[in-house]
């Protein structure tokens, strides 16, 4: 796909042919990216498209494997967050990086208190003065000596932006660049308007890279858009004149290769209901809701971050405790808030954080695969080595895990193979319902197809699945049924039989 470029002012930051690979997956391929002075640039892409890797390269957390970074026309390297800020690039991230117990001004000048040294001691008065000046430029009327935890999310973001600006100013960076990663998700409408008002004003002396899933606000407030998909450039275009639908098409991509998610293998469930949630609710996370699954049925939960789908899955898996309602698996109601009860009842969970939550990394492929079936591998009350080895070999073959031996530690395998090990661990157990939390995140295309194959095969064998995917296409392609969540509620349940799959555009309307 060609990249349109409109010639205008000399870009502040230019990234040429950027590539970044992680073990087993290439995250970015040949990306050309530029930020011009005094603009708000919208960086768009679905989860996994490479936005976060891009931002991490920009603030020096990752080094690109290929390509060149130019600042004001000079080739440069960004060696780390400190180096990046010295060169005028800083980020404000969703999690927030303020220390809640310190005051506003202490946060603003953290690690730079030396700049306020007068006669060998740090002058508190000078700090207060400077902090007030900064807050005034952000149109923020707050007491800078109060701890940060007192203030609303909007104010905290302003403080973070102010810190980045101040640091850039201290280091004498011309036209600093601030990356805002989904700043509006934690804001209410009024706060959002204020944020954009201030951003419009701030862009007179800086550039802003704005990342958001809310396409409407991106269109309204950005000057230019840069769209990424699966680690590739899609396009960069001026925002003026674009419609939300145009952007959606760019994000989702137009090429629907016929059988990418093995839709022809899709099995229409006709068995008994094996799983039900009834009036399941968790205050502040999701409103009471109900749905049921037949044996072998695949339901996809779709919705933005904050829609409540993540918490819903956590409640089903027992890692969180729900307030109301029940979970029912084939005649059993597992005690709430207990993964042990959930697993015993037949609920499995393939987590998104596979290294942190899915694997015993320093243990072998065999040990990880056999975790849940050790009972079956016993002879006369003792775990039998030969049975262990046989079971592991059987599942390495079933899931096509590429490993030198079954005794190799999982830490050395690629993400795709690690994911196959986690899948085989659950699929070989007596699981009845399997939650698949972003099962293909961060794995390459070949491994993705393998995961799809396993999902199809075991759905046919009768395992019901609840999936949450990285892209809407994947959700739609895999599911029999889609439960759409928005603002903590189920807004619609769509049928997704192979012959009439919902279109991503339909879904996006429901989600947002």
């Amino acid at each position, binding site marked *: 796909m060609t990249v349109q470029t409109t010639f205008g002012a000399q870009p502040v930051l230019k990234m040429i042919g950027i590539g970044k690979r992680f*073990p087993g997956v290439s995250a970015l391929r040949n990306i050309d990216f530029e930020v011009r002075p005094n603009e708000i640039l919208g960086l768009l892409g679905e989860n996994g498209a490479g936005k976060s890797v891009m931002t991490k390269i920009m603030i020096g957390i990752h080094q690109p494997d290929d390509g060149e970074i130019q600042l004001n026309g000079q080739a440069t390297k960004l060696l780390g967050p400190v180096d990046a800020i010295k060169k005028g690039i800083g980020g404000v991230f969703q999690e927030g990086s303020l220390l809640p117990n310190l005051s506003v001004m202490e946060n603003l000048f953290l690690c730079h208190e030396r700049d306020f040294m007068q006669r060998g001691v740090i002058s508190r008065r000078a700090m207060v003065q400077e902090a007030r000046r900064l807050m005034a430029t952000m149109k923020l009327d707050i007491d800078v000596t109060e701890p940060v935890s007192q203030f609303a999310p909007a104010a905290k973001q302003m403080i973070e932006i102010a810190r980045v600006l101040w640091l850039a100013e201290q280091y004498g960076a011309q036209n600093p660049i601030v990356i805002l990663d989904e700043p509006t998700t934690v804001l209410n409408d009024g706060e959002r308007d204020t944020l954009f008002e201030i951003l419009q004003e701030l862009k007179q002396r800086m550039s802003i890279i704005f990342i958001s899933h809310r396409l409407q606000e991106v269109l309204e407030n950005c000057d230019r858009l840069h769209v990424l998909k699966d680690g590739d450039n899609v396009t960069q275009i001026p925002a003026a004149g674009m419609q939300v639908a145009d952007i959606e098409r760019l994000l989702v991509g137009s090429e629907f290769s016929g059988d990418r998610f093995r839709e022809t293998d899709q099995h229409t469930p006709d068995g008994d209901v094996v799983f039900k949630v009834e009036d399941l609710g968790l205050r502040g996370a999701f409103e009471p809701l109900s749905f049921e699954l037949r044996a072998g049925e695949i339901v996809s939960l779709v919705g933005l971050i904050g829609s409540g789908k993540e918490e819903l899955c956590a409640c089903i*898996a027992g*890692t969180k405790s729900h307030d109301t309602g029940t979970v029912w698996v084939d005649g059993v109601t597992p005690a709430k808030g207990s*993964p*042990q009860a*959930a*697993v*015993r009842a037949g609920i499995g*969970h393939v*987590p998104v954080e596979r290294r*942190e*939550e*899915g*694997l*015993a*990394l*320093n*243990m072998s492929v065999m*040990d990880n695969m056999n*975790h*849940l079936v*050790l*009972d079956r591998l016993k002879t006369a*009350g*003792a*775990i039998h080595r030969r049975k262990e080895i046989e079971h592991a070999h059987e599942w390495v073959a079933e899931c096509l895990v590429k490993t030198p031996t079954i005794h190799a530690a999982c830490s*050395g395998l690629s993400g795709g193979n690690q994911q196959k090990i986690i899948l085989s*661990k659950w699929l070989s157990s007596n699981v009845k319902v399997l939650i698949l939390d972003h099962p293909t995140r961060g794995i390459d295309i070949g491994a993705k197809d393998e995961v799809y194959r396993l999902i199809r095969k075991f759905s046919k064998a009768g395992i019901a699945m609840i999936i949450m995917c990285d892209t809407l296409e994947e959700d739609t392609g895999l599911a029999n049924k889609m439960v759409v969540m928005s603002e903590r509620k189920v807004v619609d349940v769509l049928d997704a039989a192979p012959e009439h799959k919902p279109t991503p555009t339909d879904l996006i309307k429901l989600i947002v």
Partner: protein
Amino acid sequence: MKNTTHMGLGRRVFAMLPVRLQPVHLTIFMIIVLGTVLALANSTFLSAYNINTILSFGAILMIVALGQMFVILIGGIDLSVGGVISFVSVLFVLLVGEVGYFAFPICLFAGVMFGLINGLILTIVKIPSFIATLGTGGIITSLAYLVSPRSISASPSDYGYFELIDGKILGMSNSFYIGVATFLTLGAFLRFSITGRNIYYIGSNIRMSWMSGTDIVRNRCIAFMISGGCAAIVGIIISSIRYGGDPVVGTPYVLNSIAAVVVGGTALTGGSGGIVNVLFGALFLSLLDNGLNVVGVDQYFQQALLGAMIVFGVAVTFDRSKTPIIK
């Protein structure tokens, strides 16, 4: 691709070696070197008497260290083993006079119960085991003093019970055989039982284990109960050898048991290592201790060497890739 930047010098050296060497191989190598040096330096070193001394004292250390290893495998540490040994050593001497053979199971039960308390403080009250066992260790040591403020000797009429353990079979002290039995029992438990396997899973990734339905509370408590039980066995053995109890006798075993585990190549971060590592770790320390005495190294200086061995052992086994910032 292997990321070696956070690994620390010790592990980097191991990663560079052509053969897949593990820390325990280094321990075995050091045992051979040290053994050879000591044998050449002093002719009595290889005498049957001295070898029995090394092995029987090695066995005592190994029993505490095996218990300690279970706790370290689940990612904890047990600083209360010293207190338990001291307490049991005085309790055993007193009980033997009162209840005879029942003293054995009662002492063992007391050790296991102390372990259970440690486990519950960790899992239910949710206090890190380092702090929890530091506290209970202090309390149990106090209990030992309350039972008997100074060392006590057994009355000669009870000597029969002590000779049961102090005796020799085929020229080897009984403590050696108790060590072998403990080694085999715990080894089989770790290798063949589901609980044994769960201890590794928990140590390797506790969050994964929890999410996969493993009973974290039960398995962690079992690890501490084994540690308490092992400490109690050692308390009984020490009383039997000395024909008396002493409320401070266990203190050095805290450091020594951790050292034996670590020097054998079990990582303090949990989830890797095993009983063979502890066997060689304990053997090496026993050899070192004996050798330094045979050669005549100052008692005060020996502590320093032991401390250095722990630092060295951790340097070689500790996986720094998980924790770039060391607290």
